[in-house]
């Protein structure tokens, strides 16, 4: 489903974010990208969504060669992906309902369909009673759930979550992880960047550990160890 071949990314300021990365992720997998800050976790996600191109190498997602995709076609690629950003990127002047609905509006869905699907998705993530609230009225966990609801409402092939538990307390972090696991069980491939040791080790999923832009370990039922 996803294939990185000899991918390197060097930024204009001279920083090397990734060097010579190779990996394959199959459908319905749940993969943790781990490593310290600056290891290259977020860069992998940004390259995958076509936010910027790799310096060398090729990236394949489904039938697309992401590194060669013209800018005009990027929206079609991104419609197959659900993205949860570390900084959430919610619209503060829109309600929870509107924040989630926007993902379907972009696809040109009809009002009736939007209403039904948003309601259904918000109930699934446990925000059925908070539809009319604004982001400022929500807790950290609820904000994260809103972002996840927006990412999954269009039933993407893959869910990319960049540090979704970064600012959450342990109990709320576990709620979010349980939600992501459920989404994965329903057939969506999940890639989650994190440096939450406890969660990674408890779940027993595939772990790709990065350091200084290189994959130092890739294990099927891995653990995350810090030195």
């Amino acid at each position: 489903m996803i294939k990185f071949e000899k991918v390197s990314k060097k930024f204009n300021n001279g920083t090397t974010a990734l060097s010579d990365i190779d990996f394959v992720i199959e459908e319905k997998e749940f993969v943790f990208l781990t490593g310290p800050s600056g290891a290259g976790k977020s860069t992998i996600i940004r390259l995958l969504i076509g936010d910027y191109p790799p310096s060398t190498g090729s990236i394949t997602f489904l039938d697309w060669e992401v590194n060669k995709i013209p800018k005009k076609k990027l929206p079609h690629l991104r419609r197959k992906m659900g993205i949860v950003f570390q900084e959430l990127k919610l619209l503060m002047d829109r309600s929870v309902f509107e924040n989630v609905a926007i993902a379907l509006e972009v696809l040109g869905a009809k009002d009736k369909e939007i209403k039904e699907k948003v309601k259904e998705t918000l109930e699934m993530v446990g925000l059925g009673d908070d539809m009319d609230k604004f982001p400022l009225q929500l807790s950290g966990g609820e904000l994260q759930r809103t972002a996840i609801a927006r990412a999954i409402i269009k039933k993407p092939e893959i869910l990319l979550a960049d540090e979704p538990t970064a600012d959450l307390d342990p109990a709320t972090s576990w709620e979010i992880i349980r939600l992501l696991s459920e989404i994965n069980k329903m057939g969506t491939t999940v890639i989650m960047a994190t440096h939450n040791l406890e969660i990674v080790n408890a779940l027993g999923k595939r772990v790709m550990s990065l350091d200084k832009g290189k994959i130092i370990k890739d294990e099927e039922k891995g653990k995350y160890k810090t030195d």
Partner: protein
Amino acid sequence: MHLKTAFKHIRRSPYQALSAIMIMTFTFFVASIFLLLALGSQTILKYFEGKPQITVFFTDKADKNSINKIKSLLVDTGKVSGVKYVSQEEALAIYKEQNKSDPLLLEMVTADILPASLEVSSFDVNNLKELYSLAKKQEMVEEVVFQKDVVQNLTNWTNGIRRIGLGLLIFLVIDSILIVVTITGMKIAIKKDEIEILRFLGATNWYIRWPFILEGIIYGVFGAIFGWLATCLVLWQSNSLLSTFLTGTPLYPIPYFVMGVLLAVVLVSGVVIGTIGSYMAVKRYLK
């Protein structure tokens, strides 16, 4: 869908929208007034051009034959659009009609006193001088009255109004476009985060652009309607003044048809200006 989003944008930043609509209103108000002035002065000019511009008065000795000769001479120049013979009896009838309220004046005048005349009009006011000279040097011609100044002044005024109007209009249209570019640019900058999110969610460029372009069109359409309404209001308010000056000319009252065409013209211009302004902003700020 895009129109709904455009109206939502306007509702969320009403002051920016208001300033754009106000400048558009001013542009279309000035445009409407100058269009009406240009049209009006043109109509008045045509009206005066259609009136006899040279009147050739004959001496008592002039018989019908010699008058016909002079008439042919003038027509043969190819510069005469119309010529009408007014006999002494007809001149008396006109005199009586013009002075019917003053019996004393009527009593004193008979057909013998009034000269026969030819009323001559030309296709072009620039030919009048030549026709005047030709008529003047003929025997049997007592006097030639030449309304050169009226027509010439009107021509000068019409050209002046056109030039000033066009200059002001170009300035205001450019100003309106730049205002739409600036306001749309500001709105794009304010919505930078939202646009980024839309892009990550798979929105196409045109999905993002359309609401901004429609917003520009909405400014143009509302500006055109308000500018046209302001013109109607000014015309209505100056009704008594206009009736004093324009009664008897084909300009007054201003036909509904003209106002209808004016509305259509400003509406189309509004759409064009709004589209150009917002498209320029979108091209510049939404790469």
